[in-house]
Protein backbone atom coordinates (compact mmCIF):
# COMPACT_ATOMS: atom_id res chain seq x y z
CA UNK A 1 0.00 0.00 0.00
CA UNK A 2 1.24 3.52 -0.68
CA UNK A 3 1.21 6.00 2.17
CA UNK A 4 1.43 9.73 2.91
CA UNK A 5 4.18 11.54 4.89
CA UNK A 6 1.68 12.07 7.75
CA UNK A 7 0.87 8.36 7.83
CA UNK A 8 4.49 7.25 8.06
CA UNK A 9 4.99 9.87 10.81
CA UNK A 10 2.07 8.50 12.84
CA UNK A 11 3.13 4.89 12.32
CA UNK A 12 6.73 5.68 13.30
CA UNK A 13 5.47 7.34 16.51
CA UNK A 14 3.19 4.41 17.34
CA UNK A 15 6.09 1.96 16.96
CA UNK A 16 7.97 3.77 19.74
CA UNK A 17 5.43 2.48 22.26
CA UNK A 18 6.13 -0.98 23.62
CA UNK A 19 3.37 -3.03 25.22
CA UNK A 20 2.29 -1.98 28.75
CA UNK A 21 3.81 1.47 28.33
CA UNK A 22 1.97 4.09 30.41
CA UNK A 23 1.46 6.94 28.04
CA UNK A 24 0.26 10.53 28.68
CA UNK A 25 -1.57 11.52 25.52
CA UNK A 26 -2.42 14.89 24.01
CA UNK A 27 -5.07 15.40 21.36
CA UNK A 28 -4.46 15.13 17.61
CA UNK A 29 -1.48 13.21 16.22
CA UNK A 30 -0.34 11.96 19.67
CA UNK A 31 -3.76 10.46 20.39
CA UNK A 32 -3.85 8.89 16.92
CA UNK A 33 -0.38 7.36 17.33
CA UNK A 34 -1.04 6.02 20.84
CA UNK A 35 -4.35 4.45 19.81
CA UNK A 36 -2.72 2.96 16.71
CA UNK A 37 -0.11 1.32 18.96
CA UNK A 38 -2.86 0.02 21.25
CA UNK A 39 -4.78 -1.48 18.32
CA UNK A 40 -1.72 -3.10 16.69
CA UNK A 41 1.47 -4.24 18.42
CA UNK A 42 0.92 -2.89 21.96
CA UNK A 43 -2.60 -3.88 23.10
CA UNK A 44 -1.93 -3.27 26.79
CA UNK A 45 -0.60 0.25 26.36
CA UNK A 46 -2.17 2.39 29.09
CA UNK A 47 -3.52 5.68 27.75
CA UNK A 48 -3.72 8.53 30.26
CA UNK A 49 -5.51 11.74 29.22
CA UNK A 50 -5.06 15.03 31.08
CA UNK A 51 -8.81 15.21 31.73
CA UNK A 52 -8.19 12.54 34.37
CA UNK A 53 -9.00 9.34 32.50
CA UNK A 54 -6.56 6.48 33.15
CA UNK A 55 -6.54 3.42 30.87
CA UNK A 56 -8.96 4.75 28.24
CA UNK A 57 -9.74 2.38 25.35
CA UNK A 58 -11.68 4.43 22.80
CA UNK A 59 -13.00 2.63 19.71
CA UNK A 60 -13.01 5.86 17.71
CA UNK A 61 -10.57 8.77 17.94
CA UNK A 62 -11.84 11.43 20.33
CA UNK A 63 -11.96 15.05 19.11
CA UNK A 64 -11.07 16.42 22.55
CA UNK A 65 -9.08 15.07 25.48
CA UNK A 66 -12.32 14.81 27.46
CA UNK A 67 -14.84 13.10 25.18
CA UNK A 68 -17.30 10.89 27.06
CA UNK A 69 -15.93 7.67 25.58
CA UNK A 70 -12.58 8.26 27.28
CA UNK A 71 -14.28 8.22 30.69
CA UNK A 72 -16.61 5.32 29.83
CA UNK A 73 -13.76 3.05 28.73
CA UNK A 74 -11.28 4.08 31.45
CA UNK A 75 -10.00 1.93 34.31
CA UNK A 76 -10.27 4.98 36.57
CA UNK A 77 -11.35 8.62 36.34
CA UNK A 78 -9.58 11.00 38.72
CA UNK A 79 -9.75 14.78 39.33
CA UNK A 80 -7.49 17.03 37.26
CA UNK A 81 -5.24 18.14 40.18
CA UNK A 82 -4.67 14.45 40.92
CA UNK A 83 -3.76 13.48 37.35
CA UNK A 84 -1.01 16.09 37.33
CA UNK A 85 0.19 15.73 40.93
CA UNK A 86 -0.03 12.02 41.77
CA UNK A 87 0.29 10.44 38.34
CA UNK A 88 2.52 12.75 36.27
CA UNK A 89 4.57 14.49 38.97
CA UNK A 90 4.49 11.26 40.98
CA UNK A 91 6.62 9.64 38.27
CA UNK A 92 4.05 7.13 36.96
CA UNK A 93 4.20 8.16 33.29
CA UNK A 94 6.59 6.27 31.00
CA UNK A 95 6.04 8.29 27.85
CA UNK A 96 4.63 11.75 27.28
CA UNK A 97 3.50 12.73 23.78
CA UNK A 98 3.80 16.36 22.71
CA UNK A 99 3.21 18.50 19.66
CA UNK A 100 4.40 22.08 19.08
CA UNK A 101 4.47 24.91 16.56
CA UNK A 102 8.24 25.41 16.88
CA UNK A 103 11.20 23.36 18.10
CA UNK A 104 14.86 24.34 18.44
CA UNK A 105 18.05 22.27 18.31
CA UNK A 106 17.93 21.70 22.08
CA UNK A 107 14.44 20.21 22.04
CA UNK A 108 12.76 23.29 23.54
CA UNK A 109 9.18 23.61 22.32
CA UNK A 110 6.97 26.61 21.55
CA UNK A 111 3.19 26.30 21.53
CA UNK A 112 2.48 29.81 22.87
CA UNK A 113 3.17 32.63 20.37
CA UNK A 114 4.69 33.40 17.00
CA UNK A 115 6.35 36.80 17.32
CA UNK A 116 6.63 38.90 20.45
CA UNK A 117 4.67 37.74 23.51
CA UNK A 118 3.18 41.17 24.19
CA UNK A 119 2.29 41.83 20.54
CA UNK A 120 2.11 38.40 18.94
CA UNK A 121 1.81 37.86 15.22
CA UNK A 122 -0.02 34.63 16.00
CA UNK A 123 -1.38 33.79 19.41
CA UNK A 124 -1.27 29.99 19.80
CA UNK A 125 -3.21 28.06 22.49
CA UNK A 126 -0.34 27.94 25.01
CA UNK A 127 1.48 25.36 27.10
CA UNK A 128 -1.47 23.47 28.61
CA UNK A 129 -0.11 20.25 30.06
CA UNK A 130 3.14 20.35 28.09
CA UNK A 131 5.54 22.10 30.53
CA UNK A 132 5.11 19.39 33.17
CA UNK A 133 4.80 16.51 30.69
CA UNK A 134 8.11 17.49 29.05
CA UNK A 135 9.82 17.76 32.42
CA UNK A 136 8.34 14.77 34.24
CA UNK A 137 7.58 11.90 31.87
CA UNK A 138 10.37 9.30 31.82
CA UNK A 139 10.59 9.77 28.05
CA UNK A 140 9.06 12.26 25.64
CA UNK A 141 7.99 11.77 22.05
CA UNK A 142 7.45 14.95 20.04
CA UNK A 143 5.41 14.71 16.85
CA UNK A 144 5.88 17.68 14.53
CA UNK A 145 5.98 18.21 10.75
CA UNK A 146 9.45 19.21 9.60
CA UNK A 147 9.80 22.63 7.95
CA UNK A 148 11.91 25.79 8.16
CA UNK A 149 9.00 27.47 9.96
CA UNK A 150 8.84 24.81 12.67
CA UNK A 151 12.52 23.80 13.04
CA UNK A 152 14.01 27.15 13.95
CA UNK A 153 17.32 28.45 15.25
CA UNK A 154 15.52 30.52 17.92
CA UNK A 155 12.02 29.69 19.12
CA UNK A 156 9.88 32.71 20.03
CA UNK A 157 8.76 31.35 23.41
CA UNK A 158 9.91 28.43 25.54
CA UNK A 159 6.61 26.75 26.48
CA UNK A 160 8.38 23.58 27.58
CA UNK A 161 11.95 22.38 27.96
CA UNK A 162 13.25 18.78 28.10
CA UNK A 163 13.60 17.14 31.50
CA UNK A 164 16.10 14.45 32.42
CA UNK A 165 14.40 11.74 30.34
CA UNK A 166 14.99 10.68 26.75
CA UNK A 167 13.49 12.71 23.90
CA UNK A 168 12.66 11.48 20.43
CA UNK A 169 11.25 13.74 17.71
CA UNK A 170 9.21 12.11 14.95
CA UNK A 171 8.56 14.16 11.82
CA UNK A 172 7.07 13.53 8.41
CA UNK A 173 10.65 13.19 7.09
CA UNK A 174 12.43 11.16 9.75
CA UNK A 175 13.38 10.75 13.38
CA UNK A 176 15.65 12.74 15.68
CA UNK A 177 17.03 11.94 19.12
CA UNK A 178 18.19 14.37 21.78
CA UNK A 179 21.87 13.66 22.34
CA UNK A 180 22.38 14.09 26.07
CA UNK A 181 26.11 14.81 25.86
CA UNK A 182 25.71 17.74 23.52
CA UNK A 183 22.09 18.65 24.42
CA UNK A 184 21.35 18.72 20.74
CA UNK A 185 18.97 16.91 18.37
CA UNK A 186 20.58 14.42 15.99
CA UNK A 187 18.95 12.89 12.90
CA UNK A 188 18.82 9.12 13.47
CA UNK A 189 16.39 7.92 10.78
CA UNK A 190 14.93 9.04 7.51
CA UNK A 191 11.58 7.79 6.25
CA UNK A 192 11.45 5.74 3.00
CA UNK A 193 12.38 7.87 -0.02
CA UNK A 194 13.58 10.85 2.05
CA UNK A 195 17.17 12.08 1.66
CA UNK A 196 19.32 13.74 4.32
CA UNK A 197 19.56 16.79 2.02
CA UNK A 198 15.77 17.03 2.07
CA UNK A 199 15.74 16.97 5.89
CA UNK A 200 18.46 19.64 5.99
CA UNK A 201 16.52 21.88 3.63
CA UNK A 202 13.55 21.75 6.01
CA UNK A 203 15.62 22.49 9.12
CA UNK A 204 16.55 26.00 10.27
CA UNK A 205 19.89 25.03 11.77
CA UNK A 206 22.90 22.96 10.88
CA UNK A 207 21.40 19.58 11.83
CA UNK A 208 23.79 16.83 12.93
CA UNK A 209 23.37 13.34 11.48
CA UNK A 210 24.04 10.13 13.42
CA UNK A 211 26.88 7.92 12.21
CA UNK A 212 24.51 4.95 12.16
CA UNK A 213 21.69 6.72 10.28
CA UNK A 214 18.93 4.21 9.49
CA UNK A 215 15.83 4.12 7.31
CA UNK A 216 12.30 3.72 8.70
CA UNK A 217 10.65 0.42 7.82
CA UNK A 218 7.68 1.27 5.54
CA UNK A 219 4.26 1.11 7.22
CA UNK A 220 2.75 -2.36 6.92
CA UNK A 221 -0.63 -2.95 5.30
CA UNK A 222 -2.03 -3.82 8.71
CA UNK A 223 -0.75 -0.58 10.30
CA UNK A 224 -2.20 1.47 7.45
CA UNK A 225 -5.57 -0.30 7.57
CA UNK A 226 -5.96 0.29 11.33
CA UNK A 227 -4.76 3.89 11.03
CA UNK A 228 -7.19 4.70 8.21
CA UNK A 229 -10.09 3.09 10.07
CA UNK A 230 -9.23 5.18 13.16
CA UNK A 231 -8.95 8.37 11.14
CA UNK A 232 -12.23 7.90 9.29
CA UNK A 233 -14.27 7.26 12.43
CA UNK A 234 -14.59 10.82 13.87
CA UNK A 235 -15.96 12.25 10.64
CA UNK A 236 -18.51 9.46 10.44
CA UNK A 237 -19.49 10.09 14.03
CA UNK A 238 -20.04 13.81 13.54
CA UNK A 239 -21.39 13.87 9.99
Amino acid at each position, binding site marked *: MSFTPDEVMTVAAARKLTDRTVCFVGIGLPSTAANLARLTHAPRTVLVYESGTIGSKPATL*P*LSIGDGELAETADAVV*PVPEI*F*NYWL*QGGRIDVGFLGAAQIDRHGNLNSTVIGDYERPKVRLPGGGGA*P*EIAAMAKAVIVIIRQSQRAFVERIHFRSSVPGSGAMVVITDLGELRLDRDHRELVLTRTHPGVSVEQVWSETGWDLRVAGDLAETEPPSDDELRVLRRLKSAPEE*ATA
Partner: protein
Amino acid sequence: MAELLRLDEAVRELVHDGDSVALEGFTHLIPFAAGHEIARQRRRDLTLIRMTPDLIYDQLIGMACARKLIFSWGGNPGVGSLHRFRDAVEQGWPAPLELEEHSHAGMANRYAAGAANLPFAVLRGYVGTDLMERSETVAPVTCPFTGETLIAVPAIRPDVGIVHGQRADREGNVQLWGIIGVQKEIVLASARSLVTVEEVVDELEPRPGAIVLPTWCITAVAEAPHGAHPSYAHDYYDRDNGFYQRWDAISRDRDRFRAWMEENVG
Protein backbone atom coordinates in the same frame (compact mmCIF):
# COMPACT_ATOMS: atom_id res chain seq x y z
CA MET B 1 -27.88 26.23 52.32
CA ALA B 2 -27.93 26.85 48.59
CA GLU B 3 -30.82 28.87 47.25
CA LEU B 4 -32.66 27.33 44.31
CA LEU B 5 -32.96 30.21 41.85
CA ARG B 6 -33.83 30.79 38.22
CA LEU B 7 -30.63 31.08 36.18
CA ASP B 8 -31.17 34.77 35.33
CA GLU B 9 -31.82 35.58 39.01
CA ALA B 10 -28.75 33.64 40.13
CA VAL B 11 -26.43 35.41 37.68
CA ARG B 12 -27.92 38.82 38.57
CA GLU B 13 -27.40 38.15 42.27
CA LEU B 14 -23.94 36.54 42.14
CA VAL B 15 -22.01 38.04 39.20
CA HIS B 16 -21.17 41.74 39.21
CA ASP B 17 -19.20 43.98 36.85
CA GLY B 18 -15.50 43.79 37.69
CA ASP B 19 -15.71 40.41 39.46
CA SER B 20 -13.23 37.59 39.05
CA VAL B 21 -15.26 34.67 37.73
CA ALA B 22 -14.28 31.06 37.09
CA LEU B 23 -16.62 29.01 34.90
CA GLU B 24 -15.01 25.58 35.04
CA GLY B 25 -15.57 22.12 33.62
CA PHE B 26 -12.67 20.28 31.99
CA THR B 27 -14.16 19.57 28.53
CA HIS B 28 -17.12 17.96 30.34
CA LEU B 29 -19.89 19.86 32.22
CA ILE B 30 -18.91 23.32 30.95
CA PRO B 31 -21.59 25.76 32.18
CA PHE B 32 -22.53 27.28 28.80
CA ALA B 33 -26.06 28.32 29.86
CA ALA B 34 -24.59 30.37 32.72
CA GLY B 35 -21.99 31.88 30.36
CA HIS B 36 -24.73 32.89 27.95
CA GLU B 37 -26.70 34.48 30.79
CA ILE B 38 -23.61 36.53 31.74
CA ALA B 39 -23.37 37.71 28.12
CA ARG B 40 -27.13 38.52 28.02
CA GLN B 41 -26.81 40.58 31.19
CA ARG B 42 -23.90 42.47 29.59
CA ARG B 43 -21.44 42.04 32.47
CA ARG B 44 -18.27 44.11 32.00
CA ASP B 45 -14.63 44.18 33.16
CA LEU B 46 -14.65 40.59 34.35
CA THR B 47 -11.47 38.73 35.17
CA LEU B 48 -12.23 35.39 33.56
CA ILE B 49 -10.49 32.36 35.04
CA ARG B 50 -10.47 28.94 33.39
CA MET B 51 -7.85 26.31 32.52
CA THR B 52 -9.15 25.93 28.95
CA PRO B 53 -11.05 29.09 27.86
CA ASP B 54 -12.89 26.96 25.26
CA LEU B 55 -15.85 28.32 23.28
CA ILE B 56 -17.51 29.66 26.43
CA TYR B 57 -14.82 32.32 26.99
CA ASP B 58 -14.34 32.87 23.26
CA GLN B 59 -17.98 34.05 23.36
CA LEU B 60 -17.60 36.21 26.49
CA ILE B 61 -14.34 37.76 25.21
CA GLY B 62 -15.95 38.51 21.83
CA MET B 63 -18.90 40.16 23.62
CA ALA B 64 -16.51 42.48 25.50
CA CYS B 65 -17.31 41.07 28.95
CA ALA B 66 -13.67 40.48 29.93
CA ARG B 67 -10.76 42.69 30.98
CA LYS B 68 -8.36 39.91 31.93
CA LEU B 69 -7.95 36.18 31.34
CA ILE B 70 -6.21 33.73 33.67
CA PHE B 71 -5.72 30.43 31.81
CA SER B 72 -3.45 27.62 30.67
CA TRP B 73 -4.60 26.45 27.21
CA GLY B 74 -6.64 28.65 24.84
CA GLY B 75 -7.57 26.53 21.84
CA ASN B 76 -10.60 24.83 20.29
CA PRO B 77 -9.82 21.20 21.25
CA GLY B 78 -9.06 19.07 18.19
CA VAL B 79 -10.13 21.90 15.86
CA GLY B 80 -7.66 24.79 16.15
CA SER B 81 -7.75 28.42 17.26
CA LEU B 82 -10.18 30.32 19.44
CA HIS B 83 -10.62 33.20 17.00
CA ARG B 84 -12.25 35.70 19.38
CA PHE B 85 -9.50 35.08 21.96
CA ARG B 86 -6.87 35.52 19.25
CA ASP B 87 -8.50 38.68 17.91
CA ALA B 88 -8.52 40.20 21.40
CA VAL B 89 -4.86 39.34 22.03
CA GLU B 90 -3.54 40.11 18.54
CA GLN B 91 -5.72 43.10 17.57
CA GLY B 92 -7.28 44.29 20.84
CA TRP B 93 -10.80 43.66 19.51
CA PRO B 94 -13.33 44.32 20.94
CA ALA B 95 -11.08 45.35 23.84
CA PRO B 96 -7.52 44.63 24.94
CA LEU B 97 -7.23 41.49 27.05
CA GLU B 98 -4.69 41.22 29.84
CA LEU B 99 -3.27 37.69 30.14
CA GLU B 100 -2.07 35.75 33.15
CA GLU B 101 -0.78 32.51 31.73
CA HIS B 102 0.03 29.24 33.48
CA SER B 103 0.42 25.54 32.83
CA HIS B 104 -2.45 23.10 33.51
CA ALA B 105 -0.63 21.70 36.52
CA GLY B 106 -0.12 25.22 37.86
CA MET B 107 -3.78 26.18 37.44
CA ALA B 108 -5.05 22.94 39.00
CA ASN B 109 -2.77 23.46 41.97
CA ARG B 110 -3.80 27.11 42.32
CA TYR B 111 -7.45 26.01 42.57
CA ALA B 112 -6.59 23.27 45.07
CA ALA B 113 -4.71 25.80 47.23
CA GLY B 114 -7.74 28.10 47.10
CA ALA B 115 -10.03 25.27 48.22
CA ALA B 116 -7.60 24.37 51.02
CA ASN B 117 -7.34 27.98 52.29
CA LEU B 118 -3.61 28.10 51.59
CA PRO B 119 -1.86 31.20 50.16
CA PHE B 120 0.04 29.17 47.55
CA ALA B 121 0.62 25.72 46.15
CA VAL B 122 3.93 23.93 45.60
CA LEU B 123 4.85 21.88 42.56
CA ARG B 124 7.74 20.87 40.34
CA GLY B 125 7.20 22.58 37.06
CA TYR B 126 7.77 25.68 34.94
CA VAL B 127 11.57 25.46 35.40
CA GLY B 128 13.42 26.72 32.33
CA THR B 129 10.26 27.93 30.58
CA ASP B 130 9.38 31.48 29.57
CA LEU B 131 6.11 31.06 31.50
CA MET B 132 8.24 31.39 34.60
CA GLU B 133 10.17 34.40 33.35
CA ARG B 134 7.03 36.15 32.11
CA SER B 135 4.84 35.66 35.12
CA GLU B 136 4.68 37.42 38.47
CA THR B 137 2.59 34.51 39.74
CA VAL B 138 5.29 31.84 39.47
CA ALA B 139 8.18 31.96 41.93
CA PRO B 140 10.83 29.62 43.37
CA VAL B 141 10.43 28.50 46.98
CA THR B 142 12.83 26.55 49.19
CA CYS B 143 11.68 23.41 50.99
CA PRO B 144 12.33 24.05 54.72
CA PHE B 145 13.05 20.34 55.30
CA THR B 146 15.31 19.36 52.40
CA GLY B 147 16.51 22.70 51.03
CA GLU B 148 15.28 21.71 47.59
CA THR B 149 14.08 24.50 45.29
CA LEU B 150 10.48 24.05 44.17
CA ILE B 151 7.94 26.26 42.41
CA ALA B 152 5.18 28.20 44.15
CA VAL B 153 2.01 29.50 42.51
CA PRO B 154 -0.54 31.65 44.39
CA ALA B 155 -3.98 30.32 45.30
CA ILE B 156 -6.90 31.35 43.11
CA ARG B 157 -9.91 32.58 45.12
CA PRO B 158 -12.49 33.80 42.58
CA ASP B 159 -15.33 36.10 43.58
CA VAL B 160 -17.64 33.66 41.83
CA GLY B 161 -17.17 30.02 40.82
CA ILE B 162 -19.65 28.50 38.36
CA VAL B 163 -19.89 24.84 37.34
CA HIS B 164 -22.49 22.52 35.84
CA GLY B 165 -23.57 19.16 37.29
CA GLN B 166 -25.98 16.40 36.39
CA ARG B 167 -28.54 16.86 39.16
CA ALA B 168 -29.49 18.41 42.47
CA ASP B 169 -32.10 17.59 45.07
CA ARG B 170 -34.58 20.18 46.34
CA GLU B 171 -32.25 20.99 49.25
CA GLY B 172 -29.57 22.04 46.75
CA ASN B 173 -27.19 19.11 47.19
CA VAL B 174 -25.47 18.54 43.84
CA GLN B 175 -24.39 15.21 42.36
CA LEU B 176 -22.03 14.96 39.38
CA TRP B 177 -20.03 12.22 37.73
CA GLY B 178 -17.88 11.32 34.71
CA ILE B 179 -14.84 13.55 34.17
CA ILE B 180 -14.99 15.67 37.35
CA GLY B 181 -12.10 17.97 36.45
CA VAL B 182 -11.75 20.79 38.98
CA GLN B 183 -15.48 21.18 39.78
CA LYS B 184 -15.10 20.58 43.51
CA GLU B 185 -11.99 22.75 43.82
CA ILE B 186 -13.57 25.77 42.15
CA VAL B 187 -16.77 25.64 44.22
CA LEU B 188 -14.75 25.40 47.44
CA ALA B 189 -12.21 28.05 46.41
CA SER B 190 -14.75 30.72 45.43
CA ALA B 191 -16.34 33.35 47.68
CA ARG B 192 -19.70 32.71 45.99
CA SER B 193 -20.69 29.72 43.89
CA LEU B 194 -23.38 28.83 41.39
CA VAL B 195 -24.05 25.30 40.21
CA THR B 196 -26.34 24.76 37.24
CA VAL B 197 -27.81 21.27 36.86
CA GLU B 198 -29.58 19.22 34.21
CA GLU B 199 -32.46 18.52 36.56
CA VAL B 200 -33.68 18.94 40.11
CA VAL B 201 -34.92 15.63 41.55
CA ASP B 202 -36.62 14.51 44.76
CA GLU B 203 -33.81 12.21 45.78
CA LEU B 204 -30.17 11.74 44.69
CA GLU B 205 -29.67 8.04 44.10
CA PRO B 206 -26.10 6.91 44.80
CA ARG B 207 -24.00 6.32 41.69
CA PRO B 208 -20.54 4.72 41.37
CA GLY B 209 -17.88 7.37 40.89
CA ALA B 210 -20.19 10.30 41.61
CA ILE B 211 -19.22 13.15 43.93
CA VAL B 212 -21.66 15.22 45.96
CA LEU B 213 -21.25 18.91 46.65
CA PRO B 214 -23.25 19.52 49.83
CA THR B 215 -25.83 22.31 49.71
CA TRP B 216 -24.15 24.22 52.53
CA CYS B 217 -20.99 24.87 50.47
CA ILE B 218 -22.92 26.29 47.48
CA THR B 219 -24.49 29.75 47.21
CA ALA B 220 -27.07 29.05 44.51
CA VAL B 221 -28.32 26.19 42.36
CA ALA B 222 -30.19 26.78 39.10
CA GLU B 223 -31.85 24.25 36.85
CA ALA B 224 -30.52 24.54 33.28
CA PRO B 225 -31.46 21.54 31.14
CA HIS B 226 -28.96 21.03 28.30
CA GLY B 227 -26.98 23.77 30.07
CA ALA B 228 -23.57 22.33 29.17
CA HIS B 229 -24.19 22.11 25.40
CA PRO B 230 -22.06 22.02 23.16
CA SER B 231 -19.97 20.48 25.95
CA TYR B 232 -21.73 17.49 27.49
CA ALA B 233 -23.31 16.01 30.59
CA HIS B 234 -22.30 12.38 31.04
CA ASP B 235 -25.33 10.04 30.79
CA TYR B 236 -27.54 12.94 29.59
CA TYR B 237 -26.11 13.95 26.21
CA ASP B 238 -22.85 13.65 24.24
CA ARG B 239 -20.34 16.33 23.37
CA ASP B 240 -21.50 18.10 20.19
CA ASN B 241 -18.22 17.72 18.32
CA GLY B 242 -19.89 18.96 15.15
CA PHE B 243 -20.69 22.27 16.82
CA TYR B 244 -17.08 22.66 18.01
CA GLN B 245 -16.03 22.16 14.37
CA ARG B 246 -18.64 24.63 13.05
CA TRP B 247 -17.60 27.24 15.63
CA ASP B 248 -14.34 27.70 13.72
CA ALA B 249 -16.19 29.33 10.79
CA ILE B 250 -18.78 31.12 12.95
CA SER B 251 -16.15 32.76 15.14
CA ARG B 252 -13.56 33.59 12.48
CA ASP B 253 -15.40 36.72 11.33
CA ARG B 254 -16.37 39.52 13.77
CA ASP B 255 -19.73 40.28 12.16
CA ARG B 256 -20.73 36.66 11.75
CA PHE B 257 -19.82 36.01 15.38
CA ARG B 258 -21.88 38.96 16.65
CA ALA B 259 -24.82 37.92 14.47
CA TRP B 260 -24.64 34.37 15.83
CA MET B 261 -24.58 35.62 19.42
CA GLU B 262 -27.47 38.00 18.73
CA GLU B 263 -29.55 35.20 17.25
CA ASN B 264 -28.67 32.40 19.68
CA VAL B 265 -27.86 34.11 22.96
CA GLY B 266 -29.52 37.52 22.79
